């Protein structure tokens, strides 16, 4: 892997370019060129393609594209470039497995392949969704910890410190991030899983300063947790993000690179977005020094990633990466619908089946696009993990039929989805038990999935 120092040097000496020119004269034309090389095309009839050659062509085009484009550094207004040999070396040397967590709760994240029976890593929780109070935060994270299929958890985002809204790059963010760390570890201790890794440490720490502050061992985070370094859309970084990588690598902590490519934005349509997500894996290794790669492509209008073109692009990038690398790649799903709705469960099932049979692991789930405060519960991530395990080993052609049936159930509602209920309205926050209505929706949709041919193991 490249060191933070060598990346910083490139950020300070690479080709000078304005951001405007990077978007218009570098990224856009090179993406068009790369797409011509692989000639992939979204087909609404095949949401999970089965042609291996298409995935391989996309992978080659994506790596060539990254060699041509590089990563733009907003602070230096220069491009961080790597040539094809460096990209190949980076892919070769990237971690092929990683141990997270401690003692009884530790586990090993391994790469997967399309149609693989290897159980997917289930990174369970909030998808960065906001919560209104520390009580709800604790109750939710305890709920996540109690999901037996959880290999790791993701915490929600605190929005208040003592009733005062948290603001980024202020002492409030530092206070909030420290509380995020303390409460998350405490919640896991309470449910008897103190070693379970927190792989999105920390949802509340957007700035480098807040992350560094909350990483003090007193607050409960460990190098065996996972720490995100985001990428700005598309293929951009800045000193804040580079600072995070520098601190994390110096402390031996594992980095997850976070890429939320926007379908309809600079990436263009589903084809360009699939290619850009694949290219972000090279950026993740070389610029962020990532051990694992979390992708959450977003639809420009709907933000979620459950529409047919989003499912197709998830499958396409996932197959490209899983067939051609040993990278540890996960897909994070965002639904349009909110908690305690059957629509959210249909969306989750479609997204998770698509990702798992295409060869990646999962993070689940950002409900109702993770926009509304307290709109998250443990039942949807539990359902996602159960679907993920059931989907491992499915043939892509069979999975495609199941997913198409599921999509028909919700696609017309995506523009105006039901927001669902708040945690405190569909769960008993004191006992952590779901309402009868939530439970009935969950069992009903599971039965429907069984009827579609999904064999649940849990």
């Amino acid at each position: 892997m490249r060191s933070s120092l060598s990346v910083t040097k490139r950020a300070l000496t690479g080709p000078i370019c304005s951001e405007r020119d990077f978007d218009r004269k570098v990224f856009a034309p090179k993406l068009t060129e790369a797409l011509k090389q692989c000639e992939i095309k979204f087909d609404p009839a095949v949401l999970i393609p089965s042609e291996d050659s298409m995935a391989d062509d996309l992978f080659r085009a994506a790596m060539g594209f990254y060699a041509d484009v590089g990563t733009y550094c907003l602070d230096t207004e220069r491009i961080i470039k790597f040539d094809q040999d460096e990209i190949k070396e980076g892919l070769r040397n990237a971690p092929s497995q990683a141990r997270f967590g401690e003692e009884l709760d530790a586990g090993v994240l391994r790469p997967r392949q399309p149609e693989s029976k290897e159980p997917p890593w289930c990174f369970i929780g909030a998808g960065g969704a906001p919560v209104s109070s520390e009580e709800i935060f604790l109750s939710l994270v305890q709920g996540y910890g109690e999901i037996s299929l959880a290999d790791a958890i993701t915490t929600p985002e605190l929005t208040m410190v003592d009733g005062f809204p948290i603001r980024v790059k202020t002492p409030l963010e530092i206070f909030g991030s420290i509380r995020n760390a303390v409460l998350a570890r405490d919640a896991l201790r309470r449910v008897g899983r103190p070693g379970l890794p927190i792989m999105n440490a920390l949802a509340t720490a957007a700035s480098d300063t807040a992350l560094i502050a909350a990483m003090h061992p007193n607050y409960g985070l460990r190098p065996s947790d996972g720490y995100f370094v985001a990428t700005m859309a598309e293929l951009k970084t800045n000193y804040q993000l580079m600072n995070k990588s520098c601190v994390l690598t110096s402390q031996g902590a594992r980095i997850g690179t976070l890429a939320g490519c926007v379908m309809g934005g600079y990436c263009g349509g589903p084809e360009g977005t699939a290619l850009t997500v694949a290219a972000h894996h090279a950026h993740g290794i070389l610029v962020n020094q990532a051990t694992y790669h979390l992708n959450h492509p977003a639809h420009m209008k709907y933000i979620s990633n459950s529409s047919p073109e989003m499912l197709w692009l998830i499958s396409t990038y996932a197959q490209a990466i899983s067939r051609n690398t040993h990278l540890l790649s996960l897909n994070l799903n965002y639904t349009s619908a909110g908690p305690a709705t059957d629509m959210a469960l249909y969306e989750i099932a479609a997204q998770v089946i698509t990702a798992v049979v295409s060869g990646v692991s999962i993070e689940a789930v950002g409900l109702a696009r993770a926009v509304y405060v307290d709109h998250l519960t443990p039942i949807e991530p539990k359902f996602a993990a159960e679907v993920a395990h059931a989907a491992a080993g499915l043939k892509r052609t069979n999975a495609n039929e199941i997913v198409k049936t599921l999509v028909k159930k919700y696609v017309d509602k995506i523009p105006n989805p039901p927001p669902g209920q708040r945690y405190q309205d569909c769960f008993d926050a004191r006992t952590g038990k779901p309402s009868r209505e939530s439970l009935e929706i969950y069992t009903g949709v599971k039965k429907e999935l069984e009827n579609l041919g999904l064999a649940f193991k849990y």
Partner: protein
Amino acid sequence: MVQKQDLLERLRAAVVAGDETKVTEIVQEVIRDNVDPLEALEKSLIPGIREVGEKFERMEVFLTSMMLSADAMKAGMSLLLPRIPKDKIPRRGTVVAGTVKGDIHEIGKNVLAALLTANGFDVHDLGCDVQASAFVRKAEEVNADIIAASALMTTTLPGQKDILDYLNSVGKREKYVVIVGGGPTTAEWAEDIGADGYAETAVDGVKLAVRRLEEKSKTSVP
């Protein structure tokens, strides 16, 4: 006559293609051939960018094409506007747009800026990480009608409230329509902070801007 029609059609097509160089060349021809600059604006530049905006709304073209067309149109406008009497320039409204302090996410705001331009607004894009006072300073400078503030993170949402607080503190709240948007923004939030509206998408943002300006023009004293 045929030559003029051909010129105007080529100009419209160049805007649709997002070809800034070609638009500049054709506008120079327009000027050289003494074609009415207002006609070139109304029959070529505006229909061209509207066509791209409509395609963008239907997701037939994507952000880069939209921004290239907006750039091309602006290049043409910069040559034509000085040749059109001020009272004849079609003007829908002036918008100051930006992403609030602490937030570096730009795509949503860029889409809004491009779509507003396509719909005839004069847009002043301040970029990202913008102080509340900078929004107001720019709005004062360009005599804006609307301040559009984007925030993509829960922890940067308060930056939208800061703009309203600042406007109130300097006694200029009633002068501007303030609209907010971005991932964590909701209608309830907009109402809580006293904004004039919230839009979930950039397309909705344009509709909101048009609606609020129409309402404002009806209620303003002649």
